[in-house]
């Protein structure tokens, strides 16, 4: 379980996340929704401390992952990032082949001794995101030549391959056609047995279809959070009602 307590994030003097308190349940799909620029990506990037690479960032508050504060200075950031994988909003293949992209994480984390196991892991995850058949015979070619939608799925496969506990997916289906998006959605649903999934989405219908838990953000603040059923059908806050109404009308 991830508990965010009184988190404040400033970037270059701008107050981006304001007193955020969120609980993200385990083995469920949590959808973070909210208008563009409200701080969804920033929140995800804080959860695995990728935000450290941003310039001029100041963090306050606590993020407890299984009771451990990951914002404290003695947290093992490298290990944390392996356990909490982030699929970022813009797909970014590493400058290597498709195979190596997926194998990269397994290699640096020394997950397998035998090459056969590595190959299996790569194939399994490429299949899971529905990419394997599309790129058959091209697996050794540079990943940068894939289409954006394919790159997005590759990045997802790459994150899955290191077998994290949590998957943070930032608009993982934004560049996908409805059918590929459905593949990824189904994948997430099947993954929630083993993983905890936190995804940002702009497609409320998608959230409606697969979310167990929903967090609604607005201008850097958490407006409402709770089980999907309640937030979608019985929102307590007026802002949430308006946002949902606007999106569904």
């Amino acid at each position, binding site marked *: 379980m991830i508990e965010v307590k009184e988190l404040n994030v400033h970037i270059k003097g701008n107050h981006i996340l304001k007193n955020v308190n969120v609980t993200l349940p385990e083995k469920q799909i949590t959808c973070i929704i909210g208008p563009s620029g409200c701080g969804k990506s920033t929140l995800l990037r804080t959860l695995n401390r990728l935000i450290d690479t941003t310039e001029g960032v100041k963090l306050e508050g606590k993020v407890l992952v299984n009771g451990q504060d990951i914002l404290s200075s003695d947290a093992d950031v490298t290990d944390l990032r392996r356990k909490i994988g982030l699929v970022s909003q813009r797909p970014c*293949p*590493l400058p*290597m082949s498709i195979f190596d992209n997926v194998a990269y994480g397994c290699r640096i984390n020394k997950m397998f001794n035998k090459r056969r196991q590595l190959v299996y892991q790569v194939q399994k995850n490429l299949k899971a995101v529905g990419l394997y058949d599309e790129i058959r015979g091209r697996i050794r070619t540079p990943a940068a*030549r894939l289409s954006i939608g394919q790159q997005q799925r590759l990045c997802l496969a790459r994150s899955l391959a290191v077998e994290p506990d949590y998957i943070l997916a930032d608009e993982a289906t934004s560049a996908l056609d409805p059918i590929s998006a459905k593949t990824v959605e189904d994948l997430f649903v099947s993954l929630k047995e083993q993983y905890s999934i936190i995804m940002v989405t702009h497609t409320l219908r998608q959230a409606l279809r697969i979310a167990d838990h929903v967090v609604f953000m607005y201008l850097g603040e958490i407006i409402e959070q709770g089980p999907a059923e309640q937030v979608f059908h019985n929102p307590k806050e007026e802002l949430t009602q308006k946002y949902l109404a606007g999106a569904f009308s």
Partner: protein
Amino acid sequence: MWIAMLIVFGFVISVIWTVFSKGMKAMSWDMISKLPGGGFYIGKEGGFLNAIVGSLYIVGASTVLGLIISIPVVFFLNVYLKRDSKLAYTARMAFDVLFGVPSIVYGAFGFTIMIYFGLRTSLLGGIIVITLLIIPIFIRTMDEATRNFPGDILDASFSLGATRWETLRVVLRQIAPGIATATLLSIGRAIGDAASVMFTAGYTDSIPTSLSQPAATLPLAVFFQLQSPIPEVVDRAYAAALVLTVIVLILSISSRFITNRFSKNKI
């Protein structure tokens, strides 16, 4: 348009043909393995090993020095200064200007400095001037390769649990072709430039044994020996031109090759 193309192609081919036909006739093992006997200008014996070795010394040392100086500058421009600061902009413009300065000006500049320090024409002088000459090329080409570096790659690598060291290797992989191209381009310019080494490295018949001795270079081997009234010496000039042309051709073809091969990784 076609006529212009034909003129250009015809020109290129005739240059290469002249160099090759005259150079091949004069070429022999002695040419590249022996020092000139009896003075480079009048002696009929020997080859131009002095120029080959001199050029290698100068180009090798300047390339290493140039890299050592340019890499931190590129790093400073791209990481420390952040893309679009005023200082970075000014620095880039300055390097563009330096890039365009004719090499004779570098030669004159180096010469002035050497006089100021009381140095005579020497290997060291040549190395310094050639280093100055290629630094702008290094910086501009590497800067180009680094500037377009997608910062997202860092995020992607870190997100998979990579350490800084592992991530640095990915970064190097991304910019390595840029560095390689920069190096080859710089070597190409450094080895073929006559004007800048004329006053600074000088010319001799022997291979320099210390930094303070003058050094011969390939372009000057062509320049000086071509003026000689003695046919054997003129032959040496053509053979030197051939060696120079072949080296430059190899360099530019391999830089093309590297760019093509690795740009597949990016696009």
